[in-house]
């Protein structure tokens, strides 16, 4: 994962602006309304305007950008078209709560160190386990059935970065464990710059509180909030072959969602 050289806008620029006059946004001199839309989009992505919150009013935006109400309205229409905001008649414009299943994720480390080759993945254990209720539901097993559990730790000289647990369907006649042991399975999952798009519902992001085990591993207080990425890997037939989660060291990682409704 290479850190981007510049602070890239987290929402891609519109390819086809919803322009009644048929203006072309790809012209070098960008219309003012698109520049405003971009700025607002960036603020939304950065959390300056939180999901669900109301954007400043049109007069306020006019003042801030020194633009006419017409231009500001057009900017808001562009954002609405992207799915970034919604307008409620008489109440204003609100930041949409992102639908995570439609987002493409980029994971960015605060430092970028761990991708520079100084990071290593250590396999902590591979063991026979039994499906708990959640594993059983995801993998389509009965509770208590055998699964193989994998635990891995990605570390760099500063210490542990990510703690990775995976539950693989137990089938002695298929190389399911082999494919999970390939370093690329984890890499592909975390390939941030390209952004991995998994089928709908296959990737979820949650904030969790570190339990005792993971708190020990990260050398952080128990109960501390951390990001947890859960995913399901499918086999060639599209059936779930494994699921797992990656816990990220709380002080190092931020998650940025790139809404992918643009240009559709």
């Amino acid at each position, binding site marked *: 994962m290479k850190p981007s050289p510049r602070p890239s806008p987290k929402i891609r620029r519109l390819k086809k602006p919803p322009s009644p006059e048929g203006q072309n946004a790809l012209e070098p001199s960008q219309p003012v309304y698109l520049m405003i839309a971009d700025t607002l989009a960036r603020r939304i992505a950065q959390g300056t305007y939180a999901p669900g919150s109301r954007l400043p009013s049109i007069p306020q935006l006019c003042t801030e950008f020194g633009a006419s109400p017409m231009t500001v309205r057009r900017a808001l229409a562009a954002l609405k078209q992207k799915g970034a905001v919604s307008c409620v008649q008489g109440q204003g414009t609100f930041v949409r709560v992102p639908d995570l299943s439609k987002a493409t994720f980029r994971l960015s480390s605060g430092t970028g160190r761990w991708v520079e080759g100084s990071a290593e993945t250590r396999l*902590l254990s*591979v063991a*026979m386990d039994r499906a708990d209720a959640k594993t059983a539901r995801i993998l389509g097993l009965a509770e208590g059935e055998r699964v193989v559990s994998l635990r891995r730790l990605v570390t760099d000289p500063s210490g542990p970065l990510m703690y990775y647990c995976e539950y693989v369907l137990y089938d*002695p*006649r298929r190389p*399911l*464990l082999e494919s999970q042991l390939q370093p690329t399975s984890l890499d592909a999952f975390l390939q941030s710059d390209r952004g991995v798009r998994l089928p709908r519902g296959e990737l979820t992001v949650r904030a969790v509180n570190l339990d005792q085990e993971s708190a020990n591993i990260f050398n952080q207080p128990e109960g501390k909030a951390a990001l947890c990425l859960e995913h399901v890997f499918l086999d060639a037939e599209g059936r779930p072959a494994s699921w797992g989660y990656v816990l990220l060291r709380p002080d190092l990682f931020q998650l940025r969602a790139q809404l992918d409704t643009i240009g559709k």
Partner: protein
Amino acid sequence: MSTLDSLYLAIIELNEALALKLAREAVAERGVTPQMILTTCQQALRMVGERYERREYYLSALVMAGELFNEVLAVVQPFQHLVETEGRAGTVLLGTVRGDIHDIGKNVFAAALRSHGFNVIDLGVDVPKEAFLAETERSRPDVICLSGLVFAAYDSMRAATRLLRRHTAGLGYRPPIVVGGGTMDGDICSFVGADSWSTDALEGVRICQELLRTNRN
């Protein structure tokens, strides 16, 4: 077909429920010693390994076979102590070294040692060299056995051996060090600086017995 034959087949087929049921029957059977059950398991494990080589089985089969071995061991062990451990053969400190998590073979070797009357202290997998030293200070084993299969394990074995040797004076004795695992050979053994090596559990037991004999004389 005898219970042991059925057990052998159940393990090869990785039929967990059946294998455990048969193991329980076998321990209760007259004329069947714990040692016979474990030997049966080891032979079955070897067959699972062969199926893996032939690509009839994949990795998870080996992990399951290792688990089955441990489960059968748990069934057998309570009986084993009644029979065999009278003349304690000696204490062996065992572990898979840092950077390596293979433990199927180590567990087989531990079981073989125990069934020959050794007291085994098993430190588990991915064991740092300092842990071997600390445990040696604490329990003063007669032999130290290092298990490992991956390349990285050889460096860890060497580091552990050096650390232990540097503390010979402090320990007040020089415990023999034996290294083992499927990928071991004489060159690696001399690279590590160990006293002996093996790729086979039973041979490993004989080496330990031999080392104890020469040390006692």
